[in-house]
């Protein structure tokens, strides 16, 4: 089924690319092959999850050390499921999105590239050979790169694409070295083969950790390697952003988990580094998001935040592995893995929503919106579910996985690793509070209140082709929030696979937690029921005595849309409190004189790593080199002097 899925997707890509002259046919072919490909992939997932029928594929490949080997263990099954759900729904949305978009509908490559991206994602999570993995990884990187620059008539899109290209190839380079080291030690490049000969404590694993952090961490967007996210996500078409933020960055997490599986056990330093990186990414991501007013940039920073939560879970799982505490290892990994699915669901929901808002408003600026809940009721209501879920509040899915990471931290505390646990608990709590602030800000500015611009006044919901995929994602968010059982048992099988246990070995260790999670689901459903009863009681009490009037403006009778609180002012108490770590540039032209005429205020939040560190460092280096070049050119004597100094230095060094 797996092979069928990949070949249908790739064949669909080829056929729809060659049929590009007839757009209608190309669209029909790509839609059909996407649905067929994803459904046959889902069949493989069901087969593997329900009766353990791991569909193993192995074939020769005329490349050195390469084999076309794929299989589905618990971990691959889980990620494959995530890939298929999000790709299928985003693809269906994307078809309508492309049609409505002026620039994209002319593009001949958007549809075949999306199919290629999906096929490569399926292949990368099932690959059992390093060469095949890297091949699929590279295909994924290239397909997503070309999708990011689909609207390359805008200079900022080209810039973002360039940055993404550099980052993703830095990552690939690190992975090449990583697998070369592993392959040299093991004599094979099959994952299973490396694992079977791997000694329990791999010698050079600090180097491996560094390479994995660059390779997988760059893709996942762990701070400080997140620099491409906030540029590439806004630049890409929205359905592609949904897939990139929902899945492509999760492939970095998958890589980490697969590597831990290969190494079988990891030293303590992994846990320390991952927990700290997770806390920094989480808090840094949500703080940077608070300062944004470009919707997709804000969502991209929230991806950094959620990757931080996932990395916290990963780190706690590594802690359990290195301390031989199976409960902690399983809890940490299960939390990380479940949050991967949950984040894929609500983040792609939010990105799809942002696409509809963008097409309605013509800008990604949240302060150009307002009142969209009235004008675009479906898109706004579904986005509300995404916003609540990403804030991690019950009864939605984000809470369940954050709770698992909390429980992992509490388990780590009992296991005697109190400092890391305290970092993780404090980080999670701060992330939770700030995420609520950030999403009430974004949602309030965009969907609530009064329209602020002319475009917002005439905004309309897109058709069902775009709202139905969003509704499916939102339904999954509520389902996992109120009935976490099925998703949790899949996640725990995946966690068991990472720890190298048989799939059912995790169940007894986690039985108590699974039961508690069911109670959480019940409590979530309870909130909904109590709320419904209260609403019913209110309607009885009111008995129709409802009058409509203007909003109370404290005596002022002519409030306008421009007097509403803006998103920037909403987050100002927090952005001011955290100003030292935010890098906000504000430009304020104050009104002056007795008859002030004009005043302006604008603010922009730089990325601390990219804009304040890498770019200045890069231009300083370039400046230094240019200065040297000028010196070199000016006089022969200087060059001679430089040569002499260099020789002298060499001599001194040799001594």
């Amino acid at each position: 089924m797996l092979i069928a899925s990949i070949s249908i997707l790739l064949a669909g890509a080829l056929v729809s690319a060659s049929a590009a002259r007839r757009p209608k046919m190309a669209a029909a072919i790509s839609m059909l092959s996407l649905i067929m490909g994803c459904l046959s992939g889902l069949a493989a997932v069901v087969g593997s999850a329900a009766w353990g029928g791991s569909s193993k594929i192995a074939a020769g490949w005329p490349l050195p050390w390469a084999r076309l080997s794929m299989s589905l263990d618990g971990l691959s099954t889980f990620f494959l499921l995530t890939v298929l759900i999000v790709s299928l729904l985003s693809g269906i949305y994307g078809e309508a999105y492309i049609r409505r978009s002026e620039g994209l509908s002319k593009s001949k490559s958007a549809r075949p590239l999306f199919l290629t991206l999906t096929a490569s994602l399926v292949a990368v999570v099932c690959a059992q050979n390093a060469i095949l993995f890297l091949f699929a990884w590279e295909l994924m990187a290239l397909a997503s790169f070309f999708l990011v620059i689909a609207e390359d008539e805008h200079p900022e899109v080209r810039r973002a694409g360039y940055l993404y290209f550099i980052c993703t190839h830095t990552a690939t380079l690190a992975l090449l070295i990583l697998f070369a080291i592993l392959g040299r030690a093991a004599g094979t490049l099959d994952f299973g083969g490396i694992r079977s000969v791997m000694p329990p404590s791999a010698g050079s694993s600090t180097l491996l950790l560094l390479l994995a952090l660059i390779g997988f961490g760059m893709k996942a967007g762990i701070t400080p390697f997140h620099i491409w996210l906030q540029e590439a996500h806004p630049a890409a078409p929205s359905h592609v952003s949904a897939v990139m933020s929902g899945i492509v960055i999760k492939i970095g997490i998958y890589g980490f988990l697969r590597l831990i599986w290969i190494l079988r056990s990891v030293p303590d330093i992994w846990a320390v580094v991952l927990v700290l990186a997770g806390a920094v990414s989480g808090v840094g991501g949500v703080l940077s998001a608070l300062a944004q007013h470009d919707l997709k940039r804000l969502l991209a920073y929230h991806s950094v935040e959620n990757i931080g939560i996932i990395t916290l879970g990963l780190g706690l799982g590594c802690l359990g592995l290195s301390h031989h505490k199976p409960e902690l290892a399983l809890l940490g990994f299960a939390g990380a893995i479940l949050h991967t699915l949950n984040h894929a669901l609500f983040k792609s929901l939010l990105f799809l929503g942002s696409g509809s808002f963008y097409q309605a408003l013509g800008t990604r600026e949240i302060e150009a919106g307002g009142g969209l809940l009235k004008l675009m009721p479906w898109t706004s209501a579904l986005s509300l579910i995404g916003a609540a879920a990403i804030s991690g509040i019950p009864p939605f899915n984000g809470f369940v996985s954050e709770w698992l990471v909390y429980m992992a931290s509490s388990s780590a505390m009992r296991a005697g690793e109190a400092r890391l646990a305290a970092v993780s608990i404090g980080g999670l709590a701060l992330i939770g509070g700030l995420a609520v602030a950030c999403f009430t800000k974004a949602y309030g500015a965009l969907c609530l209140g009064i329209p602020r611009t002319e475009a917002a006044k005439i905004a309309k919901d897109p058709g069902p082709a775009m709202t139905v995929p969003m509704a499916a994602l939102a339904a999954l968010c509520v389902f996992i929030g109120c009935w976490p059982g099925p998703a949790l048992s899949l996640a725990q099988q995946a966690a068991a696979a990472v720890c190298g246990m048989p799939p059912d070995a995790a169940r007894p260790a986690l039985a108590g937690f699974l039961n508690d999670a069911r109670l959480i689901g019940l409590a979530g459903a309870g909130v909904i029921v109590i709320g419904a009863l209260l609403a019913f009681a209110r309607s009885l009490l009111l008995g129709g005595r409802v009058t409509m009037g203007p909003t109370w403006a404290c005596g002022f009778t002519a409030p306008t849309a421009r007097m509403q609180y803006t998103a920037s002012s909403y987050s100002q108490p927090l952005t001011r409190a955290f100003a030292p770590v935010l890098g906000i540039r504000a430009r304020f032209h104050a009104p002056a004189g007795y008859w002030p005429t004009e005043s302006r205020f604008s603010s922009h939040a730089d990325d601390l790593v990219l804009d304040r560190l890498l770019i200045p460092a890069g231009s300083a280096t370039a400046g230094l080199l240019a200065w040297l070049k000028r010196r070199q050119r000016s006089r022969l004597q200087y060059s001679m002097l430089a040569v002499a100094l260099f020789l002298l230095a060499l001599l001194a060094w040799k001594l």
Partner: protein
Amino acid sequence: METLKLVASYLLILVFAPPVMLGLITKTKAAVAGRKGPPVLQPLYDTLKLLGKGAVYSTTTTWMFRLGPVAALAAVLAASSFVPLAGEPLISFNGDAILFAYLLALGRFVTATAALDTGSSFEGMGASREAAFSSLAEPALILAFASLAYRSGALSLARMFSPHGGPQAAASTVLALGSLFVVLLAENSRIPVDDPNTHLELTMIHEVMVLDHGGPDLAFILHGAGLRLALMASLLVRLVLPDWPAAGPVGSLVLGLAATAVVIGLVESSMARLRLIRVPQLLVAAICAATFGLILTLR
């Protein structure tokens, strides 16, 4: 029979504790100022009167505005089932403390979105302040929970909030208690963070978010806010006061709640509210106290 008694005492506390506590706070403040003050049950009369009224909705608002009061009260009610109000809680499991904290966050989320739904700049301002302050109060709350959970071995409110530990745990208990008390004042808009009696919209935090609500909606909001105060206060009471055998668990909790209300009244009569830009400093101090408490416990 036991279950019936438990549920009955739960219901009584859920209905009467919030208005009586608020009434006692007002009464204490009046007594300190040398006034007679309104009757203790005045908040209950207000709620009943509001329940009988109709509603005025702004034309700007949508269903979000009507969802707010209902969902906020539902979240607090659900959160109350993990708090040992009648000697033991209705539901208890390992990890319910986190669910408790996040249910309160759900209440904040819907209240803030309902406030933004009116399009009023005053309500936006209130929502902004509430979001900022409570996102700093959250780490203090959860870190204090963590140190208590470490001591009791489970992240469950019923186990965490019971007197235990003896003298060597006294320091960490005091630190947790201090940070939880600050969180209680901040989350329930009491002085020194917010003044519930202020008359100027510009200076309000919680009150300004609900300016446009009236009738049963306002009754739900007021009762929910009072209930949040009562829940957090009963956690503190359970932490400090042992059960008094003569009064039984419910009786000792009620006495403790009354004492807490008097303490809050005294705090409110003895100090002015802080300037808004000083509030984050107070909350960061609470986070630090909770962290120190955690370090002391883990030592």
